[in-house]
């Protein structure tokens, strides 16, 4: 790619645009088009070694590298946060190799690479969500042989998955699976939504944005086109439910977002904060306050009845 190298900055001239060579990108792009055409089906692809270990998002990075263009703005989140090691290093990787703009704001991003969360803010048609996937095969822990799971998908033989959910009910009285909760895509393929909390599953259904999934170690790509039916598996008498909290976010007072529990000391004090840092920041900027926000009077550990007042 002599031509490409010539037109790049000196700083990045040792690499092709977005790190991967053009042939690799074409191979991934072909897999992506097939993945979009067969929603929920895992397309094998010739995953490359990336300059980061497996488990750090090599699949998502390869998908992003094949999709990203110079006009894109990239956001990377790890468990909802923009400022964790994994998110920061992947964001810097693309800032360096593709010279693209990066952002921490969900609304400003055209591509969002995510590890295990879907942003709280509703995504738009002009956005692409790229998931990092550790184990793409939802049936893998039930059936270790790839030849068999292929056949099960081909024959739509998903009884085993229902047995697993049933065993949860038999043992715990409810479906105890809380993340990587299996979904049925467009009434055909059972898909692993990656280890996102099941709280995020309903957001996948009929989403306006395109969702792409990359598993680097397992070398699989799959996708959900926009406005695709995604149903979480359940039973008539045990319908699918998402997590809920008695607490609110300690910083912004949100009650509608996914909350992380933070242990504050060894005396049993704890707080809950939004896992989605951008959502929490936006709410705080809009004047929302939770009981543990530094603006709040000291010692107010109980949620304040005025916590929503500032926003009005």
């Amino acid at each position, binding site marked *: *790619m002599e*031509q*490409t190298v010539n*037109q790049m900055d000196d700083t990045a001239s040792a690499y*092709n*645009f*977005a790190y991967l060579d*053009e*042939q690799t*990108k*074409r*191979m991934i*792009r*072909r*897999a*992506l*088009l*097939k*993945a*979009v*055409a*067969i*929603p929920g*089906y895992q*397309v*094998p692809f010739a995953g490359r070694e990336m300059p980061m270990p497996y488990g750090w998002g090599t699949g998502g990075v390869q998908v992003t590298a*094949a*999709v*990203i*263009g*110079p006009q894109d703005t990239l956001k990377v989140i790890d468990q909802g946060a923009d400022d964790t090691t994994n998110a920061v290093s992947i964001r810097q990787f693309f800032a360096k190799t593709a010279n693209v703009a990066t952002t921490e704001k969900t609304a400003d991003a055209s591509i969002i690479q995510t590890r295990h969360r879907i942003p709280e803010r509703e995504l738009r048609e002009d956005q692409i969500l790229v998931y990092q996937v550790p184990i793409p095969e939802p049936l893998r822990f039930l059936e270790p042989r790839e030849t068999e799971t*292929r*056949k099960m*998908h*081909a*024959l739509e033989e998903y009884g085993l998955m229902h047995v697993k959910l049933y065993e949860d009910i038999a043992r715990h009285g409810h479906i105890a699976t809380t993340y990587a909760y299996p979904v049925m895509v*467009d009434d*055909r*393929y059972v898909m692993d939504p990656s280890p996102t909390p099941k709280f995020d599953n309903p957001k996948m259904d009929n989403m*306006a944005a*395109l969702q792409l999934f990359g598993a680097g170690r397992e070398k699989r790509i799959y*996708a*959900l*086109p*926009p*406005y*695709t*039916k995604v149903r979480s598996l359940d039973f008539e008498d045990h319908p699918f439910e998402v997590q809920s909290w008695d607490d609110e976010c300690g910083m912004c007072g949100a009650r509608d977002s996914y909350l992380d529990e933070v242990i504050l000391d060894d005396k049993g004090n704890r707080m809950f904060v939004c896992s989605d840092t951008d959502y929490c920041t936006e709410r705080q900027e809009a004047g929302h306050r939770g009981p543990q926000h530094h603006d709040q009077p000291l010692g107010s550990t109980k949620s304040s009845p005025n916590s929503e007042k500032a926003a009005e």
Partner: protein
Amino acid sequence: MTLNAQTSDLLPGFDHAAFDSNAVFRVLLDAMSRPGRIYDLPVHITAPDGLNASATATLLAMADMDTTIWLSPGCATKAATAHLKFHCGSPITTNVAKADFAVARCDEDLSFITELSVGNAEYPDQSATLILLVDDVSESTEMICRGPGIKDTHNLAVAGLTPAFHAWRAENHHLFPCGVDVIFVTDTKIAALSRTTRIEVK
């Protein structure tokens, strides 16, 4: 044929290999994930005899030595074959069943489409993609599309589609998850029909 004779007539490929192929891919990704919606070709490219600009851009962005191309009699000109061999390095086949990308003009005999690979139940991705050169695509209500990627309905009209093509497309949809995906290309526009798309023909 000497190398000189072969290269002197060659047309240039993309202005910028990385950026242009990315731009074309993004349009194809949008088109395939929103079947029936029409997109503009985002780059300027000269097409060899036998192909049009969007078909050329699609092949240059997606095809390489790993993909076999089949060209219909109307597309398989010397110029087009040489162009694809040089820029993509793709093997060109005369056996339509082996094609990863099959390229044809809409007004030709399309009876070959029944021979295209549809993949198999375990690997439905091992199917062909049909690139169909057409004169015009518009949003008139000739085909009403529903399915994944489509919020309510998308309307698509493609100039010159025959009832036989529509019948094949309907059958192709029923093969899901196997099946052929279709990309319609005019000189300036691109639209796609994924195998998932349900079409009501008016």
